[in-house]
């Protein structure tokens, strides 16, 4: 198993948020600020890591006919454990993310990775796949969160103290002072429009890269021509 491949798939080629389009509900709902996005992204990454590892460890004695309920049980246990830990150590952030933490259970990306990858691979690659997929989701969340926060309020990392305590105050950036507020970006339609823009941007990057590659392959290099 090629670990580099797993990373590229998780972060870019099969990015959950921008390519596979799984887990859109939390992606759209919690991406109104960067801090919310980071909080939910980290919780999702942790869930993916733990559930992939557990599914991979149990893959030999989980019979095919009960594997789906078993995955659901594993994922639900992991999410509940993370919820309790957050409640104990990141209480303020927990109050902000609220309902979306238990809803990680229903993020199809997690059961998708359990079924498509973890149940067929050894624990180490499975754990790395969980990490890579989770970080890919985190990246998409943060990109969308930054886009919406910047357009909607002209700030970045507002309320960062929820994540980093007092040190977070310094992180808070007012990029556009006196921003009048652009409501559309903060409301749900802004999430859809922003996601559309991000997907378009990613596709454009991809198309440009393959065009460049095609030119390199087709055009004979000067040395060879000479």
């Amino acid at each position, binding site marked *: 198993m090629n670990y580099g491949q797993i990373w590229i798939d998780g972060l870019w080629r099969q990015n959950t948020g921008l390519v596979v389009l799984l887990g859109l509900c939390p992606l759209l709902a919690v991406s109104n600020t960067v801090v919310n996005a980071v909080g939910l992204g980290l919780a999702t990454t942790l869930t993916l890591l733990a559930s992939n590892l557990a599914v991979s460890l149990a893959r030999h*004695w*989980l019979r095919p006919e009960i594997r789906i309920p078993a995955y659901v*049980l594993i994922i639900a*246990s*992991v999410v509940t454990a993370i919820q309790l830990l957050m409640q104990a150590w990141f209480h303020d952030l927990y109050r902000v993310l609220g309902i979306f933490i238990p809803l990680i259970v229903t993020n199809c990306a997690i059961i998708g990775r359990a079924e498509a990858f973890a149940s067929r691979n050894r624990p180490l690659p499975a754990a790395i796949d969980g990490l890579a997929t989770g970080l890919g989701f985190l990246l998409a969340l943060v990109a969308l969160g930054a886009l919406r926060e910047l357009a*909607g309020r002209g700030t970045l990392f507002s309320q960062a103290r929820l994540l980093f305590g007092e040190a977070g105050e310094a992180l808070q950036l007012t990029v556009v002072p006196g921003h009048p507020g652009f409501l559309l970006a903060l409301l749900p339609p802004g999430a859809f429009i922003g996601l559309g823009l991000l997907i378009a941007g990613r596709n454009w990057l991809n198309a440009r890269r393959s065009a460049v590659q095609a030119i390199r392959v087709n055009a004979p290099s000067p040395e060879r021509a000479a």
Partner: protein
Amino acid sequence: MNGRRHSLLRSAASLGLVALAGTTLLAGVHRLTADRIAEQERRAMLSQLSEIVPTERYDNDLRDDRFTFRDEQHFPGGQTVTAYRARLDGRPVAVILRFAAPDGYNGPIGLLAGIDADGRLAGVRVTAHRETPGLGDGIEIEKSDWIRGFERKSLNSPPPAGWQVKRDGGEFDQFTGATITPRAIVEAVQRALQYYESHREALFATPRAATERPAK
């Protein structure tokens, strides 16, 4: 037949084992975190309450000196109100009511209102709301100082006609594009003050954590 039953049993057993492992994990994490979560919740509540009535003004445990009641006339919408009493040397200092304005633009708006023993508002805070971001969310202390406009106000200052938003001829500002939200809060706070005036003695005399409404 026997083989099928055997494989059925094996499936059931392994599913049961997964459930058992999950339960064990959760029981462990719960034991590990229960005390800390309870502590965090108390801390969060105290910091909320002390924004309204500073801790140096009283010497009892505000969080435990509380009771709940219902009163459809002053707190409509079938809600349960919690009253926290602040006392110094056993004398009433203030009462903090946790209630909701039922008629916000997007559903109820959770409120905390502190009323000093002399009937003046110590302060009001919004604890939960779903008002429109950018329009109605100026009620949050983080977004604007609007909610501080209630401080030191009482039932007769401004006079009853002033207990309205400016658009309705009263003294309280509304937000551009959002009148319903401030109107709901102004009316809810006024009703809370009216309740305080008619139930002042009972509010401080009701034993803690009793569920009945205070006697008239």
